[in-house]
């Protein structure tokens, strides 16, 4: 009997309800079964069955819940299980990572002091090593930008002088012509001579440094051109290529706004050159017109050649025809080889050309040095490359590395030191199932996170100190200029530092014995950790102490160089170059200057008194034997020079214009008297070879002996024999001694004089003592760097010490409490807590001081004049280090001793 109350949808819903919440059926399965059921029902209804009959038949055919449940379960269980597994392991991993991060962040935040020590130390270390990296990279990039750098060589000459082989950078000019015409492997041979010249366009006059250079100069040295053709810019006399800056100076808007300079005229008033190593300084009043054929981009700071203009060599040869012969050596010679040609094969062929053409060159050997190496490997000893700037590169690289290492060590130290505090956390993690590898991951992750924070901090720090860094090193570096590769390296260093520092604590901590941890001791970790920590502290302080000694020694040496009595008075001397009409009207100018009470004396000389570079071997004296060789520095002056420079006469007199004009009268220094072995030098026959005929001395004689005075850098120039010659007309420099307290007034008078006598030249001057100081700019840079390094190293080491003491105080809190209760004094406690660390610092002193002494002594021997290493330096360095260490450690210990014993005892 049909049931009129039957509702199909209700029935299906009821049927569905049985299946819901059965784990064997997923939503998909249910939907599929329902579809099946409904379709069967529809079909049965169509066949004429009632709703109820159809439902009953279809659902029974499909199977009831129990039957289907069993059938489905066999398939579905593995599915369910797998799903659950994936989900739970994923959840587990996520929660584990979250827990790592959480505990890392928590640890960082909870231990603010410790974290900032840790991150701060690493940050400073990273920043420091990054800056060193930038510096080294810049140095290595010098001269590497020339397109054909791999084929570009400089010809150098090894010259046997007595027992010593000296290496000169100057080569005979004709060699260039032979090389270019006779050897197929030579693409171009380029002569170049550095000069200084005065260039003028209408009423703008400038003094700049530049080159006379062969036509292929810009083919070999690929300085980019802004206008003109590099290949033809120098191929005819009267052409000039200038830098963009020089073009701006001379042509102003015309160049800057319109970019037109090609075809403009520049007049050359004079040029001067040192004339090679053995030649004479020359000064040529050229008065020639040059036509601009090229404008090149300003020479980059990483070029060892620095210049603002280039003139064709042809113009020198037109003035000095004899330079095309083999004798004079005024030029440097560069060779651009063809591709696949070998410099090693060319060298002997070059030698045979020299031997065949220059019989006087039998003691000379030509060598080729790759041009890219000349900057960093500029020193030669006995004819072989013997380092140069590269040594400094290594040294600073090493120090940078040491500082990075110190920072990493700190990191490791502080991390392990705190490990026993974290022992509980590790114990709990282990008990709830963390595997050792999971713990290693956790600690490495923590170290990594800290390193990343330090990395970001280091970059911020670098931005902050970049101006100082540039000031100290003379670089023009900016973080934004660094290549992606450099950034990647920085990042790599940071990551490596983090991991390196994290690896040791990670493995030690993860291998701790859980039971012993809960018993209250950190297991074997303690012993191992302590030994490691001790070694690291010793290393840190050894490096710091070494740097302190180095810094002190370097500054002592710089101070010595600057303040040494030079035999002349370099203070308050203003120098101007004599040019234009000043040369011809010097006497009137001098008279006018002396009217000023601010100017005490005025003189002139061929070179500035502390920059005498001309060395002459062609000096004749009575009794000179064949083969006698004495090299003399030659300086030409007027009669006021000795007075103005406050030289001391030892014997005879200085020059007198009324007596010495046109005479071969010379003044020599004591060293010259010694070198010639003279007993009574006054009146002794002597003459400069080029002033007399043949090998004789003519009427030449010594009229005075001046006390030895320095005439160059104290770094490499011993005082040697010197001849002073009376030749006011050869003078290049005006020297004015001004009253010490009236410098400004004196300068104003000099400017008035310049404006009156030399209106077409801007008033340019320099102070003799500043010029002298500039000789030591390298040493000053090293000093600044070394001081910075020393500060950083000490800072990091002290941070480390601070952390370690804090830790040791914390660990021994109970012991301290008990001791205080038992009647220990504060002093006892301070000694107890700091003894160990101070001992370590003392040990590092014992290691570092002898090493520092020896290495700095070696460094000092590279100076011609130097201070002695003193024990005072070592004692002071040791004292400073110990004092800082004791203060750092003692302060913390004292604070612990001040606490109430009860609070110490309750500390856990």
């Amino acid at each position, binding site marked *: 009997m049909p049931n009129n109350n039957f509702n199909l949808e209700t029935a299906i819903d009821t049927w569905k309800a049985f299946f819901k919440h059965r784990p064997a059926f997923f939503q*998909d399965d249910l*939907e599929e079964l329902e579809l099946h059921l409904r379709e069967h029902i529809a079909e049965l209804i169509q066949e004429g069955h009632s709703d109820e009959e159809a439902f009953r038949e279809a659902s029974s055919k499909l199977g009831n819940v129990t039957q*289907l449940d069993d059938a489905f379960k*066999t398939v*579905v269980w593995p599915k369910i299980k797998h799903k659950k597994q994936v989900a739970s392991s994923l959840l587990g991993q996520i929660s584990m990572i979250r827990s790592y991060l959480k505990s890392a962040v928590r640890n960082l935040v909870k231990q603010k002091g410790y974290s900032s020590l840790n991150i701060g130390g690493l940050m400073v270390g990273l920043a420091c090593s990054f800056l060193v990296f930038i510096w080294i990279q810049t140095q290595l990039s010098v001269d590497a930008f020339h397109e054909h750098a791999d084929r570009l060589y400089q010809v150098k000459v090894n010259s046997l002088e007595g027992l010593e082989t000296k290496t000169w950078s100057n080569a005979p000019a004709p060699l260039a012509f032979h090389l270019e015409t006779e050897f197929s492997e030579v693409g171009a041979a380029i002569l170049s001579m550095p000069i200084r010249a005065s260039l003028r366009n209408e009423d703008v006059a400038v003094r700049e440094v530049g080159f006379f250079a062969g036509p292929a100069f810009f083919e070999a040295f690929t300085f980019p051109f802004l206008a003109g053709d590099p290949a033809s810019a120098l191929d005819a006399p009267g052409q000039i290529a200038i830098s963009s800056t020089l073009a701006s100076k001379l042509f102003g808007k015309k160049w800057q706004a319109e970019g037109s300079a090609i075809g403009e005229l520049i007049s050359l008033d004079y040029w001067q050159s040192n004339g090679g190593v053995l030649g004479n300084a020359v000064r040529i009043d050229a008065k020639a017109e040059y036509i601009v054929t090229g404008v090149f981009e300003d020479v980059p700071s990483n070029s060892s050649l620095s210049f603002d203009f280039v003139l064709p060599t042809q113009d020198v040869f037109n003035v000095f025809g004899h330079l095309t012969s083999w004798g004079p050596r005024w030029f440097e010679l560069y060779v651009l080889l063809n591709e696949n040609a070998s410099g090693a094969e060319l060298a002997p062929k070059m030698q045979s050309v020299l031997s065949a053409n220059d019989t006087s060159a039998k003691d000379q050997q030509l060598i080729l040095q790759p041009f890219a190496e000349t900057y960093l490997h500029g020193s030669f000893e006995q004819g072989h490359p013997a380092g140069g700037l590269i040594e400094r590169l290594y040294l600073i690289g090493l120090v940078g590395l040491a500082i990075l290492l110190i920072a990493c060590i700190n990191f490791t130290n502080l991390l392990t030191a705190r490990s026993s505090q974290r022992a509980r956390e590790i114990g709990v993690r282990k008990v709830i199932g963390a595997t050792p590898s999971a713990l290693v991951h956790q600690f490495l992750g923590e170290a990594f996170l800290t390193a990343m924070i330090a990395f970001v901090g280091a970059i911020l720090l670098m931005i902050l100190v970049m101006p100082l860094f540039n000031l100290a090193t003379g670089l023009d570096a900016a973080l934004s200029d660094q290549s992606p590769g450099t950034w990647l390296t920085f990042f790599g260093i940071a990551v490596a530092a983090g991991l390196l520092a994290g690896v040791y604590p990670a493995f030690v901590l993860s291998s701790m014995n859980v039971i012993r941890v809960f018993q209250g001791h950190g297991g074997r970790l303690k012993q191992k950790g302590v030994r490691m920590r001790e070694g690291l502290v010793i290393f840190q302080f050894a490096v710091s102490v070494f740097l302190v000694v180095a810094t002190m020694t370097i500054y002592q040496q710089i101070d010595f160089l600057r303040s040494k009595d030079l035999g002349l008075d370099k203070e308050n001397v203003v120098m101007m170059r004599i040019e234009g009409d000043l040369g011809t009207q010097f006497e009137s100018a001098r008279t006018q200057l002396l009217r000023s009470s601010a100017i005490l004396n005025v003189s002139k000389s061929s070179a500035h008194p502390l920059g005498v570079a001309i060395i002459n071997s062609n000096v004749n004296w009575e009794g000179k034997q064949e083969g006698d060789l004495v090299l003399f520095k030659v300086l030409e002056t007027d009669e006021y020079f000795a007075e103005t420079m406050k030289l001391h006469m030892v014997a005879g007199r200085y020059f007198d214009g009324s007596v010495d004009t046109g005479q071969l009268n010379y003044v020599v220094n004591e060293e010259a008297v010694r070198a010639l072995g003279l007993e009574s030098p006054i009146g002794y026959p002597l003459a400069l070879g080029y002033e007399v005929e043949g090998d004789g001395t003519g009427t030449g004689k010594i009229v005075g002996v001046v006390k030895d005075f320095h005439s160059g850098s104290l770094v490499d120039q011993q005082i040697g024999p010197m001849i002073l010659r009376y030749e006011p007309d050869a003078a290049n420099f005006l020297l004015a001694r001004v009253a010490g307290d009236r410098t400004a007034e004196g300068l104003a008078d000099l400017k008035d004089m310049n404006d009156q006598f030399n209106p077409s030249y801007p008033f340019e001057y320099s102070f003799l003592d500043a010029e002298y100081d500039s000789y030591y700019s390298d040493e000053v840079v090293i000093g600044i760097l070394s001081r910075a390094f020393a500060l950083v190293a000490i800072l990091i080491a002290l941070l480390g010490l601070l952390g370690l003491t804090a830790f040791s105080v914390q660990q021994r809190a109970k012991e301290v409490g008990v001791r205080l209760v038992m009647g220990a004094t504060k002093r006892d406690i301070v000694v107890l807590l700091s003894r160990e660390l101070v001992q370590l610092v003392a040990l590092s002193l014992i290691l570092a001081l002898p090493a520092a002494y020896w290495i700095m002594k070696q460094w000092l021997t590279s100076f011609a004049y130097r201070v002695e290493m003193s024990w005072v330096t070592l004692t002071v360095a040791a004292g400073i280090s110990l004092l800082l260490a004791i203060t750092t450690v003692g302060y913390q210990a004292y604070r612990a001793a001040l606490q109430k014993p009860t609070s110490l005892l309750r500390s856990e």
Partner: protein
Amino acid sequence: MLPKSLTAAILRPIVLSTLDCGNAYGYQLSQRIELISNGSIEWNTGTLYPVLHRLEADGLVESFWQESDSGPRRKYYRITAAGRKEAKAEQLQWVEIYEIMVRLWKKDVSFG
């Protein structure tokens, strides 16, 4: 009427071979099996689905939902290449069993 025990054993090769004749959705598949067996198999058509799922898990069939013009969307099953290979292998096994049985029934054996 086949007993349940035998049905359980034979359902898997039947489903596979039926699908080898063409894609089908669940109800359609059960209809086809009914049709081919003349209703001689006693089964709950619901048990078809666990079999399909197992086959799917083994990579022998794959499923896809498809909208239909007339009714609700349906889940279709399609045999895979691996499934086809499996069907072939099972066919050989069944033929082998059949031949063994025939020989026994014909007494075409000597147990010497």
